[in-house]
């Protein structure tokens, strides 16, 4: 227990330091608050969107696989302290365990759950005149006959919208 006394003392000191800082700042700092100051920060303009309240489920999967690895690591620590006494038996045990963890990791990656980058997808645009059109000012030289591939993703194929 005594070994943890200095840590406790440092904890108390750190908390006191932060608390005293807040009190001191409360005494010294001016209080001229306005509702504009207390509004959410939006680079000086009126907030146009609400804070998003949903996030991609990918974050959840990252936390999930982290738990798995965290538990593996927690098992590795005691193993690492006595792995020489355990010898080959312990080594094989750990290999089996590591393989099982690795397997779930591979499963997760194989499903694309840890991919974050933008997806490259072919998008079908309307066939447009090679000249300028009302949709775009870019001349599509030689676009005729090139957009006829079939395996493209048509779900987001709204005219003029790039993926």
């Amino acid at each position, binding site marked *: *227990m005594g070994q943890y006394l200095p840590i406790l003392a440092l904890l108390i000191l750190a908390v006191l330091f932060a608390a005293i800082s807040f009190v001191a700042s409360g005494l010294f700092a001016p209080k001229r608050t306005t509702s504009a100051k207390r509004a959410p920060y939006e680079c000086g303009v009126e907030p146009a969107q609400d804070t998003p*309240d949903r*996030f991609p489920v990918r974050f959840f999967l990252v936390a999930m696989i982290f*738990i798995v690895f965290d538990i593996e690591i927690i098992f590795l620590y*005691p193993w690492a302290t006595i792995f020489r006494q355990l010898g080959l038996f312990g080594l094989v045990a750990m290999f089996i365990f590591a393989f099982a963890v690795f397997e779930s990791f591979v499963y997760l990656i194989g499903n694309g759950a840890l991919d974050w980058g933008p997806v490259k997808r072919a998008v079908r645009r309307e066939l447009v005149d090679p000249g300028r059109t009302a949709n775009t000012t870019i001349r599509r030289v030689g676009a005729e006959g090139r957009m006829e591939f079939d395996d493209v993703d048509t779900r987001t194929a709204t005219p003029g919208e790039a993926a």
Partner: protein
Amino acid sequence: MEAIVFFVSAAIILAGGLGVIVLRNPVHAALSLVATLFGVAVLFIDMEAYFLAAVQVIVYAGAIVVLFLFVIMLVGVDKAEDIYAEPIIKQRQFAALAAAGMLILVALVGVAFAGDVTGQPSNEDMTISRAIENPDGTTTPAETSNINQLAEALFTDYVFAFEITALLLTIAVVGAVVLARRPKGDLQPLPDVEPSWALRKPRAVTPTEATDPSAGDDADQDPDETTVDQAATDGAETDEAKA
């Protein structure tokens, strides 16, 4: 000294546990859970189970509650839900009944095993866990840690359980992927979510929004929205969260 630490950490645990139940905001409840777990870690230190204390903080506070918080942020339930809605009919009565039954059970077990429930020190003669004053004036310092004994038990007698844990973790990951994955094929119409690009006034909570948690979500929903546009919107939302 140990008694003081015990009572302080027990107080933290109880306060945290109460907080989990009582606080309406899920994030506050998750924080109370962290307080409870921290209290348990202190209790472990008090009982000289040092490695378990570290595990308690690293795994439970550091990983599992972070997962809870992700879920809370993910689903966007970080607002007080309507506490008077009862998804299961008469659930309050059932809960009270179950709690009473549990209390009686605990009391019965407590009476039946009175005196035996505290168990024995796990390391009777295997190691010295306290400093010992020798007769000749020297002191034998305490053993570094019980981590070695834990490892020995885990990787010899309980090695099968240890391997099964890996299987359990794999199943958990597969389950998470299956649950999180949206079905393949044509996109189903998505649940009614307000398009994130819709320009809105700075948030002013209307009375309907305050009482009905779902009212805010589909209030501005454009009935002409097609599935295609919703998919595009969803993609945009994803990009935004990543940005």
